[in-house]
């Protein structure tokens, strides 16, 4: 049986983390393809529904990437994202999706290397952790 490959739905902010992913690419740094990137204008526009939908549809992890505090293109969207992630974590932990599956990371536009490291680290952690509990159930796609 082939090794478990986690699916990580990633919401990257256009100005920092997505640009970092771009930089990683142009710098020829390779990072795991487990990271499936969705570009958003700001981490602050990641509605909790997006995260829920990802998990309910079988994502093994969700990674939200935003600018460092103080660097947000929209001044404070990233700080709002942090509060929402804290809220989501409190709720999801009860149902078996712990904070180890929902990550928020600050990755600046210049931090292509950090993007690679975070992608590798999260992929590795999720491989250890195994598939999302929602992936094992037959109705995972619906819920």
């Amino acid at each position, binding site marked *: 049986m082939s090794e478990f490959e986690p699916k990580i739905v990633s919401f990257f902010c256009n100005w920092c983390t997505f640009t970092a992913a771009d930089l990683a690419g142009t710098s020829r740094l390779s990072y795991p393809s487990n990271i499936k990137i969705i570009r958003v204008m700001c981490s602050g526009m990641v509605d*909790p*529904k997006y995260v*829920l*939908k990802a998990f*309910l549809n079988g994502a093994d992890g969700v990674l939200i990437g935003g600018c*460092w*505090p*103080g660097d947000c293109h929209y001044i*404070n969207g990233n*700080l*709002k994202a*942090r*509060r*929402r*992630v*804290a*809220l*989501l*974590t*409190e*709720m999801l*932990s*009860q*149902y*078996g*999706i712990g904070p180890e599956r929902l990550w*928020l*990371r*600050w990755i600046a536009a210049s931090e292509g290397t950090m993007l690679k490291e975070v992608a590798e680290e999260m992929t590795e952690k999720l491989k250890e952790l195994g598939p999302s*509990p*929602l992936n094992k*159930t*037959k*109705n*995972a*796609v*619906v*819920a």
Partner: protein
Amino acid sequence: MSKYIQLAYTKGELNTQLSELFASMLENKAVDAILAPMTQPKKGVMQTLVTSKDNVKEIDPFAPVMPVNSAKIASSLTTSPSGKKIAMVLRSCEVRALVELVKLKQADLDDVVLIGIDCLGRYENTDFLKFQAKEGTSESFLENAMAGKTEGDGFDVAGACKVCEYPVAPNVDINLCAIGSGSGSLFIEALTEKGEEVLSAAGAKFVNGPSGRQDAVGKIAKERSEARNALFESYRSETGSFDALDDKLAACINCYNCRVACPVCYCKECVFVTDTFRHKGEQFIGWADNKGSLRMPTDTSFYHLTRITHMAAFCVGCGQCTSACPNDIDVMPIFRTSAQKIQDRFEYLAGRSVDEPQPLSVFDSDELMEVTGQVK
């Protein structure tokens, strides 16, 4: 410092005495209108808006029923202000929900005199009719409930009430104190200047407060807190996974009654009735194709979890969600358990204070560092 007046009543006279007090509030122009639970001509007890002193005779604040959480009624009366001063007689959970609506700018307390009642629980609407049919009255309920007996013939107070740690409403101007007031006696407490003015204008004479009240309230709050902790623990051990949550919600038909009944579900238009969730036929077929089958209606736990992300920070535990469920799903613990964790995380307590900002309306650059675990 609180001031008290005492109403001594003989059997069957509690509501008469209260109606005289409220009538004099209207007569002396202490307030222009009163919103209070009143006996209806046909049956039941409902919140009723009264502007004439001749129409307060049917007042029944302690009737053990809460047809709707009146925070929503208070919202509709005050978001577009009438310019009239309204006294509102509300339960603890109604007041606390109203405080949250004020912060959401969906209600305004400027022209409102908040009158809380000591709450010993409420029956479900249909159970209350059974209670009335068996000659149950507010006085008999208070007397029995104070002795710890709330059970009727095959029914009891709502599950939410059994685990409600707030028998007394915070943030009110006046409180109708039944707990620890002694048999045949009711104390009316003025907690704010506004409350004192209204009572003085109604011709009240202030006396010393009831001596054993604090202990009696504390005892009830403690018992209910323990019951709450036990409920949370058993709910949490039963539902450690999404599968278990789906089991709880197995009978859910996406009617959305729980959010209609919820006093703090604040969106003007719920996203679940917008085009976002009006999927195309081919989408449904695609989802069914993915796993071979698709439960219809779809998005059931998605809906409940989204509702938690919206309202759990403000959940006051009134239990109207469970009461509103046509399929008898006890949804209250789903919302309350998450609410407790979320409110704890943000050191917030729904209904505690009008001045305390709601968790998702503020943020700070030096907080919640553990979320990312990164330090620059």
